[in-house]
């Protein structure tokens, strides 16, 4: 009998090269389309518009002509939590286990039919990656015909967020199972935003697999809760110990500095370490 070993010891994650990102928004559109994210009648109300993948615009704060812009795509961070044992900020607070940490993939799931909309997970998440369905989902007339059959639309009153296109993982796994393979190939499971990015700024794969591009790009240190060994790489709010699986890469100091809240004098130490890493 075939053994299903898929997913064991995997840790799917994403690396986003901020120096390549042009802020075109393709990732946002692809994500919305892939995951049946509904439209709103008034999209100007940004704070209750649903965008699983959101692109922030950062600036170095300097006047022209020294002004620099960086676009930062921000999906769910799929936090591993303190000690990488699945103690994600959102998972441990949900009273009904509507969100959970999958130890075989490292993906933080969201069970819409279990969620009753207390929004505690939203309160616990510092990245604002979770969205509450304030409205009934609506699509322009005829658009409902183009909904993805693999992703359930969410009803009003529940929280939703990026799932790293988990349905694609399921499809890849099923395909491998049929073909009597135990592992899925790197390119078999890719998120919609990764595929859509025209600049190739987003890379997706198994952070635990040394053969995968994401691993080679950041070289996560297994002894330091996945902290990157690549000195150009960083994660958002690293010191909060949320242990995200989304890594960012940038050559620019001010961009890396924007990744966390550094107190006076702290950034210089980080930068020194970074410079030593380059030597």
């Amino acid at each position, binding site marked *: 009998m075939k053994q299903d070993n898929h997913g064991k010891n995997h840790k799917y994650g994403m690396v986003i090269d901020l120096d390549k990102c042009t802020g075109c928004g393709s990732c946002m559109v692809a994500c919305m389309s892939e995951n049946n994210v509904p439209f709103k009648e008034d999209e100007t*109300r940004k*704070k*209750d518009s*649903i965008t699983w993948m959101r692109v*922030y615009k*950062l600036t170095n704060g300097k006047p022209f002509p020294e002004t620099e812009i960086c676009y*930062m795509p921000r999906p769910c961070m799929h*936090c591993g939590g*303190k000690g990488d044992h699945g103690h994600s*900020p959102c998972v*441990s*607070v*949900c*009273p*009904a*286990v*509507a969100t959970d940490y999958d130890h075989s993939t490292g993906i933080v799931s969201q069970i819409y039919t*279990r*969620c*009753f*909309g*207390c*929004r*505690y997970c*939203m*309160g*616990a*998440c*510092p*990245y*604002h990656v*979770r*969205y*509450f*369905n*304030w*409205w*009934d989902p609506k699509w322009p007339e005829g658009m409902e015909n183009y909904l993805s059959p693999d992703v359930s639309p969410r*009803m*009003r*009153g*529940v*929280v939703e967020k990026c799932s790293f296109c988990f349905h694609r993982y399921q499809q890849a796994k099923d395909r491998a199972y049929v073909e009597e393979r135990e592992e899925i190939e790197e390119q078999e499971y890719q998120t919609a935003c990764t595929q859509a990015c025209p600049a190739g700024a987003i890379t997706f794969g198994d952070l635990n697999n040394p053969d995968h591009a994401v691993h080679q790009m950041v070289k996560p240190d297994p002894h330091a809760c996945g902290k990157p060994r690549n000195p150009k790489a960083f994660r*958002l*709010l690293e*010191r*909060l*110990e*949320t242990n995200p699986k989304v890594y960012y890469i940038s050559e620019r100091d001010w961009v890396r*500095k*924007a*990744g*966390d*809240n*550094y*107190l006076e004098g*702290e950034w210089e130490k980080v930068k020194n370490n970074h410079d030593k890493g380059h030597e």
Partner: protein
Amino acid sequence: MDSALIPEGAKRCPFPVFAAGIAIVGVVVLWGVYAMGLCWLKGLNQTNMNDYYGFALWIWADLAVIAIGGGAFFTGLLRYVFGIDELKNIINLTVVIGFICYSSALLILAIDIGQPLRGWFIFWHANVHSMLTEVAFCLSLYFSVLTIEFIPLILENRQVDKVPFFHNLGHNMHGVMAIFAATGAFLSCFHQGSLGGVAGVMYARPFAYREGLLVWPWTFFLFTWSAAAYGPCFTLTVLKMFEGITKKKLVKDNVVHLLAKISGWMIFTYIIAKIIDTIYWATVTAPSQGFKLMDFYSDNAFYGIWILILEIVICGIVPAIILTKKSFRENSRLLLIAVVLGTLGVCLNRWVMVLQIMAVPVMSFDTWALYFPSWQEIATTVLPVAYGIILIALAYRYLPVFPQEKELNAD
């Protein structure tokens, strides 16, 4: 018209006046019920909450009423478990207030969740690691205990008491009330603490996060302590309001002063713990997460350092001094100032722990999230207050809430 229902020997205003008062407050209730209906039928889009600000004004009200309702469990503990007999003259009032506060809290929670029909999931799919699960269990169970504590008072209504079965039931329930009071104190301790834990365990929110003992952050203990300390302040505030409105003395001074003294010492010890907690958080916990104290109180239009000073100094240290010093607390004006400040202080603490934590930006490129509640949120927050006024007015009119009233107003 309803004189047969009024406690024997007690004087009450004419029924039409009472009915008119109830009708006026009833209009406010109906306004709140309409807003509640909108939230249930149309959804939480009726509020001004958003994905940055997911906890509404009413969640603050929820925590605030639970805190000020803490007088019920603490006075019950003192009366039934520690045997402080004088408090029997004010225990009925605390039970009524507690019942109102906890039923209001449950009502607010029922409005707050996005899928009210799935509210039972919190019990069925309970996540034992979530502080909110503990809150839900303890809140529901403690409300049951408060109901059991309230029933004997209802059975003491002049007409109900004439029925032998109800008379005996009420008498027997009084006999075992110590068990329920002790159970209630235990449950309430836990859920007050869990409400503090709800904020304190959010380790990715530096404004809320606290280190602590085992699985409990310091806010767990501070919330329980503050509810026990400030709850009696609210009881005394309500008593003073009653005495002002009815122009009668309803509870003897020795009882009031005793409860005020206990509350004062509780506030005194609590505020020391709160100051230590604040200093540790501001100098150790927050800096370890990349924040200075003033990061939480600057760069926005509302949350200044004044809020911390108001909570700790004006609404903490000042009432503690007034209530612990005999000559101060026996001055009726100073006593009133102290209990009102105490009530405001605990409500302010809950405001900070519910609403300010949502407003503080965490990512370095993020901004403060300020919001103003919609009328539906305001109406549903006022709803429990109006409901409470009606219930307490009915209780005062028809039930022996104040056992010393007859003696104190014999003429």
